[in-house]
């Protein structure tokens, strides 16, 4: 059959004729200008940072609905022609897949136009938002309405948004930093076009959707995170009253091996909530590019940067081997009392405290301190000037919050990265009892050899960590299948059975997080 389709690629198993028919029907639903098939115009969706060819994540089209009803109707068309759609909210999952689909040929459903802040309740401190809302937009809204409420956001806060971040179970840096935990109530369009409101939202006339998460019976919200069982069209989130006194600080430590005592000293404070926010323990090489320090000023040879050069960076720029970021959130009185504990802990462990006053002029400190109060910025993009070339994938295993464990993970990662010539650019983000050990595998995406090495390096990291029983908290789309496989067959079987029940034609983001029929 001769293809007349304008699409450069087609979804697997779909004929050009059927694809064109589907596109025509979708155009009738959302309007011509909200469907793009033209290869040039799809460029912004195609840009990825992962070490695989763009081709692997090429999309066939993008559709930009505005409203639940349009999405319901698109689902009908997708089912009719068995065409997979890949929903994104703000589409800035940079280093995890960006806005490109998990599998070649899928239609990206871009929800960025749905950007309404539907409700903010200043008494209950809750918000209800659509997927296209950015953190910057929510920040501006709260400022404009003079609402003293804070939210927690990830580092790319100015351009990313709460719904996309939460459904991928992202993290931030205020006391509400575990974002899924502080979400409350979702609205989801299912593959058959039905609209589900989770928790109390399922009940007609309920006014408790954004305040009580569980509802009655099994709680379903988790099923719509890191999955492909529905398109999330609204999400409730909790906001934090701005504390009368906020005291962010950094504690710097001189040696890599100090991670052990740092974690042992901080864990009790975090579990007891003396430190209420997600503490970050950042390595020198995370801080350096954001300071900014140029790698080439310290090392231009082959392979990973030597420890000796890292030591020089620490000395020249007043950066710790580890840099602990946390804050006190309370009143002056409570913070004064807790500050004494922080000072004692720092003194007892050989750390140097840097206060907000002392942080002035350091870009790395300032963007961190802003993130700890949910003030959007993009300071962390400094990371990308370290190796240059726009390559980045996050390797993000979960660790216990125990000193020996963090040291072991750090050493394992550093050894494997070094073998492939990459630097250890890592941090630990402390939950209550766990840590997200987040490593940015930075490489030059314009260099084919580095592309290959970055892929092989991630692969080795993943499998070596899995052998030790360490699993990922989240993964990029290129490695979704491999990461899912590390969690064993029973879980995958259940995920598949759920997929079959909810989406028998496999039309919502097949392959996302390794789930497909």
């Amino acid at each position: 059959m001769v293809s007349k389709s304008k699409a450069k690629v087609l979804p697997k198993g779909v004929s050009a004729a059927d694809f064109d028919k589907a596109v025509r029907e979708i155009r009738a639903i959302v309007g011509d200008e909200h469907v793009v098939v033209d290869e040039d115009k799809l460029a912004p969706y195609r840009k990825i940072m992962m070490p695989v060819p763009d081709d692997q994540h090429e999309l066939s089209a993008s559709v930009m609905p505005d409203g639940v009803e349009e999405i319901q109707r698109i689902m009908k068309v997708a089912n009719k022609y068995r065409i997979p759609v890949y929903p994104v909210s703000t589409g800035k999952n940079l280093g995890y897949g960006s806005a490109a689909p998990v599998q070649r040929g899928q239609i990206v459903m871009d929800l960025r136009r749905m950007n309404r802040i539907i409700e903010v309740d200043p008494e209950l401190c809750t918000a209800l938002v659509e997927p296209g809302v950015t953190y910057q937009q929510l920040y501006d809204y709260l400022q404009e309405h003079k609402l003293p409420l804070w939210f927690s956001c990830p580092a790319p806060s100015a351009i990313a948004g709460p719904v996309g971040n939460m459904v991928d179970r992202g993290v931030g840096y205020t006391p509400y930093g575990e974002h899924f935990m502080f979400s409350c109530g979702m609205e989801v369009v299912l593959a058959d076009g039905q609209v589900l409101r989770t928790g109390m939202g399922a009940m007609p006339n309920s006014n408790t959707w954004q305040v009580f998460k569980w509802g009655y019976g099994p709680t379903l919200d988790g099923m719509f995170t890191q999955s492909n069982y529905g398109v999330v069209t609204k999400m409730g989130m909790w906001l934090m009253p701005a504390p009368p006194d906020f005291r962010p600080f950094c504690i710097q430590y001189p040696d890599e091996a100090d991670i052990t005592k740092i974690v042992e000293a901080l864990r009790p404070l975090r579990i007891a909530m003396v430190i209420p926010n997600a503490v970050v323990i950042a390595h020198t090489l995370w801080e350096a590019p954001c300071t900014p320090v140029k790698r080439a000023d310290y090392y231009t040879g082959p392979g990973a940067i030597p420890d000796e050069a890292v030591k020089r960076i620490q000395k020249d720029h007043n950066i710790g081997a580890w840099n602990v970021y946390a804050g006190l959130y309370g009143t002056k009185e409570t913070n004064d009392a807790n500050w004494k504990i922080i000072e004692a802990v720092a003194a007892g462990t050989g750390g140097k405290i840097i206060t907000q006053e002392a942080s002035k002029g350091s870009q790395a400190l300032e963007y961190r301190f802003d993130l700890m109060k949910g003030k959007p910025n993009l300071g962390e993009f400094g990371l990308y000037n370290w190796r240059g070339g726009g390559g980045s994938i996050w390797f993000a295993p979960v660790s216990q919050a125990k000193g020996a464990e963090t040291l072991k993970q750090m050493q394992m990662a550093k050894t494997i990265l070094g073998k492939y010539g990459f630097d250890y650019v890592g941090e630990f983000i402390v939950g209550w009892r766990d840590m997200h050990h987040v490593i940015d595998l930075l490489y030059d995406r314009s260099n084919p050899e580095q592309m290959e090495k970055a892929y092989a390096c991630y692969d080795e990291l993943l499998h070596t960590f899995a052998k030790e029983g360490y699993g990922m908290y989240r993964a990029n789309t290129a490695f979704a299948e491999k990461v899912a496989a590390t969690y064993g067959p029973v879980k995958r079987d259940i995920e598949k059975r759920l997929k079959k029940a909810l989406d028998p034609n496999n039309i919502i983001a097949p392959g996302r997080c390794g789930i497909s029929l």
Partner: protein
Amino acid sequence: MYARRLAVCLGTLAALTAAGGAQAEWRDGGEVYDKVCRYCHEANVGPVLKGRALPEEYVRRVVRMGNRAMPAFRPTEIDDATLADVARRINGSEALARE
């Protein structure tokens, strides 16, 4: 005491139970520059753009395609007309004042 202070903070605003509901749109290219571009391009992350008479077509293209680590921006994020305004403003801008 903490609770009382907070209650004072928020109490006066209770009436505001802010129901938004409107679709957000950019005011103009200046707002986009301030709320997006500036975070990198006036912060030692990306190159300074102002005062270089960068061709408008070049700015528009880089925004849509991305460039190395710079993310690409879709028309749903910045529509064509507003992007054209961003490019015009960057092209005609004065150099940043040095501190």
